[in-house]
């Protein structure tokens, strides 16, 4: 493959949030990732695009090792998050997942109150015995940040599963923030939302960008184009092209990328 030329090597002086080296992954016998090497820049929004089954969600789910909950997954290669190899034996999955937030395709607030959803992360990682006021502050701050505070401040005890989908998805982002993650992974976060909801989530991504590194899987090429700084195009478990979003949609270097973004297949 010509991937090497289309995938910029790690440059000196650039801060990378995630770097992978020859990452391979098997679901039982089926190999879903065929050796992914990529460098994802810190503080930016990077989108993963490609047709269904290309491995983009699998790659995303490697970054917090949530793939491993199924016993039949084998992974080889290296993933470094902020310089630390997450497959090192001394890495604690609990701490790893605390520092990496994940937003799912369908909003999945827990069937408890809005308040408890937001403080869920704090509660499970609470070691120093936070006070009620700490929790209250965290809720206000996180909900303000995602723009839900004004709508929900009087309904904090309401069950989160009763909210509108857009609010649910914002809440799912809000509940990551009290843990101060370095990286937020998003797996098609807008696919269950309407136009307004999609716009709201994208605006939220822009607001969070810089402080957080965001990696987003999307089926929607227009969204990748609008909302991301860099784009990674994957096909059949391989990384085909990784470049600035503006370049990918104007001057794709690889024929397959060009055909995909023109909509010839996918």
């Amino acid at each position, binding site marked *: 493959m010509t991937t090497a030329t289309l995938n910029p090597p790690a440059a000196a002086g650039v801060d990378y949030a995630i770097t992978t080296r020859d990452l391979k992954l098997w679901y039982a016998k089926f190999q879903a990732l065929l050796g992914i090497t990529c460098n994802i820049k810190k503080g930016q929004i990077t989108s993963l695009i490609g047709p269904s089954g290309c491995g983009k969600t699998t790659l995303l789910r490697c970054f917090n090792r949530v793939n491993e909950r199924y016993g039949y997954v084998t992974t080889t290669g290296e993933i470094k998050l902020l310089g630390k190899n997450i497959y090192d034996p001394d890495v604690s999955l609990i701490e790893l997942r605390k520092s990496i937030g994940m937003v799912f395709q369908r909003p999945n607030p827990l069937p408890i109150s809005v308040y408890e959803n937001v403080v869920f992360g704090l509660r*499970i990682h609470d070691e120093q015995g936070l006070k009620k006021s700490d929790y209250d502050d965290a809720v206000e701050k996180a909900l303000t940040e995602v723009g839900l505070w004004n709508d929900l401040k009087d309904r904090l005890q309401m069950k989160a599963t009763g909210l509108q989908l857009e609010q649910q998805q914002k809440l799912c982002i809000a509940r990551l923030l009290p843990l101060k993650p370095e990286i937020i992974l998003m797996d098609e976060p807008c696919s269950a939302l309407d136009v307004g909801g999609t716009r709201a989530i994208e605006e939220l991504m822009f607001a969070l960008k810089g402080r957080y590194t965001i990696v987003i899987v999307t089926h929607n090429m227009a969204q990748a184009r609008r909302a991301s700084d860099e784009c990674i195009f994957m096909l059949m478990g391989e990384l085909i092209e990784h470049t600035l979003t503006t370049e990918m949609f104007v001057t794709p270097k690889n024929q397959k990328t060009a055909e995909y973004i023109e909509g010839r297949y996918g």
Partner: protein
Amino acid sequence: MKPAVPRASRSQLAIMVERVIEGLVYICGISAIIFVFGIFFFVFKEGAPFLAKLNFTEFFFSKEWIPTSSVQPKYGIGALIVGTVSVTALAMLIAVPFGLGAAVFVSEFCTGKTKETLKITIELLAAIPSVVWGFIGLSVMSPVIISVFHVPVGVNLLNAALLLALMSVPIMVSIGEDALKAVPDSYREAGIALGATKWQLIYRVLIPAAKNGLLAAVLLGVGRAIGETMAVLMATGHAVNIPDSIFDPVRTLTATIAAELGETSHGSPHYQVLFLIGVVLFSITAVVNLAADFIVKGIKRK
């Protein structure tokens, strides 16, 4: 000219067979309803004549059950109700942690072969006939209880409660596991991605999410325990008694009917009172089962 719509080509016979089968299936479908109401009606009808003579306060609250006295028979089922309730309560105290714990284990910790083997084995526990349980109570548990706790009698409240606990665990496990399985996987992923440990996931996410189903599992276990007859008849000691400790013998409503009905003459007051006890039992189990049912419906609607 050909007709636009082809005519039905099936024979008269095939159509008849179809109708008959439809009718049979319909009867099968509604038979359960007919039987339930039929049984309730029959039980009530047999006991009803005594209602006129019945002193309700005495019936429910007196602990004097002397139905065979020729001078002054007494029909107080207070002690029997206490017997049933205490055996059931103690059984649940033992069975609920075990049953729900097993449900969590099967649903969340086991995979593949282990899971299947465990489920089949637990269901096998439900297949043991209750008279065999009673036998175990009499010949195995009783001596064990005597030697472990140094009590004079081994057939008592504790013995029966242990048996009932074992008998109601399978239904709790199987309904509880269903309830946990019905929790969307996305909740688990949400918890895991936030860095929850397995235990945190279980008690902060899964148990709240499945609480209705787990409650239904417990109620069905309760229903099973209340209605059980043979094992409690053999293991409680069958003495009309309000227990002071778990080592006292008691007697349950079910065991009373089973033990005495054969010795009464048809239509006698004793006979009728036993049927009234049947009505009381039926009402209790119906309420418990209906409650469980409504709770399960609540889950499905969501």
